[in-house]
């Protein structure tokens, strides 16, 4: 009854076409259909933040978003964060500098969330950073270094 639908998604400034079942989430579309595996699947149920991407500049969870729902919106993933000349985004550099990861699995989600958190202005204190980054869990417990990286990147951006 349902088959597949043809979608045209705007991802990292490029138009990408794909044919997927309507139930396919943005996360699975990225990872399984478009070879963009930087966005990670942790819980697949909204509980960890590993799948954080930006839609129209806002951070959202790709695992609870249907690919079909975001046709016509601008999607940014970790692969599209740096400006393309091979350099890193300042938040990526800050994570490297502060050793803000161990296994690295949560890191793309942390970085996408941090970029948005800084843009939102929710970085006025370490407590505010912790609160507004609480949607990104880190099983390795790199939290204190993550807060330091976000704080420094926020100061550099202001």
């Amino acid at each position: 009854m349902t088959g597949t639908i043809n979608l045209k998604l705007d991802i990292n400034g490029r138009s990408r076409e794909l044919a997927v079942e309507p139930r396919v989430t943005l996360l699975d579309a990225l990872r399984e259909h478009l070879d963009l595996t930087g966005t990670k699947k942790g819980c697949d149920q909204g509980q960890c933040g590993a799948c954080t991407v930006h839609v129209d500049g806002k951070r959202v969870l790709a695992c609870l978003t249907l690919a079909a729902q975001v046709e016509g919106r601008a999607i940014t993933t970790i692969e599209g964060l740096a400006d393309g000349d091979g350099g890193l985004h300042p938040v990526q550099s800050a994570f490297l500098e502060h050793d803000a990861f161990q296994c690295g699995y949560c890191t793309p989600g942390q970085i996408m969330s941090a970029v948005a958190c800084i843009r939102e202005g929710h970085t006025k204190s370490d407590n505010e950073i912790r609160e507004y980054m609480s949607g990104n869990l880190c099983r390795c417990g790199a939290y204190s270094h993550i807060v330091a990286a976000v704080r420094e990147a926020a100061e550099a951006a202001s």
Partner: protein
Amino acid sequence: MKNFSYLRAHSADEARKAAALAGNMVLAGGTTLLDLAKCGIAEPDTVVDITHLAGLDGIEVDETQASIGALARMSAVADHPAIQKAFPAVAESLALAASAQIRNMATIGGNLLQRTRCSYFRDAAVFPACNKRHPGSGCSALGGVTRNHAVLGTSDACIAGYPGDLAVALVAFDAIVHLGERQVAVDDFFQLPGNTPDREHAFERGEIITAVTIPASAAARRSTYIKVRDRQSYEFAAASAAVGLELEADGTTVRDIRIALGGVATKPWRARTVEAALIGKVLEPELVRKASLLVMEGAIDHGANHYKIDLAPRVITRAVLKMGGLA
């Protein structure tokens, strides 16, 4: 997750018509619906995406009321300066809910309709008995792990708690749910489980929530939302309270007070007996502590959730004293 078709609605009428068909479900932010679809609990034939409808995401505040479109995102309402000023408890209840990412996705209409986090309800494969999913099948929570279950408003059929935060603030300030032309007081919109725990809201298939309005009041202006939980953030309430307070000119006598509880009841719970015990009285810690206990008259615990009977009155007390400048 069962496969389904996707329909993008272009008008509210189209959405209503599509949603009226058995098997179809409205899709807003998707943070409840897709989660439950993955659990195999929601099995829509077609999801009717309403997030592209124009004109349903406005937030307007004047001297008489706030009017919030059903598609306004939780984050937009939480960050709205006029809501923060005239309805701080509403803004705080949203800011303390879920995570920044979820608040950017989730809509106000969907937020009201979020389902219980009862772990038996969410796990149909292991626990087939659930009166909320299948009326008459029994309740797997009874005799199970009940730490997060309700102590107020329960029935023999279901003890599942209502998990949301926003609706607690809305119940305190007599908000109204707009279903197009039809309007329902938010306290009536949420129904007690009784013998029909599958029926949670006073609305019919094919109706769409279009807006929520909240009457302005002095109590709403001087209000707060306190949420106590197992971890500091990104967690549902163990117990929460929305409290609004208006004092007489003497600065100590209660003229008007609004109190509602979350995390402990089967629906957002207005604490009218506590309000009645405080109106006209001079605010004073011991009085507030005693009055707060009244909310638990008739509470029934199931062992592991007994702590809520002690915790919730303390959360009320803390919020009232904070608003009264006594804490």
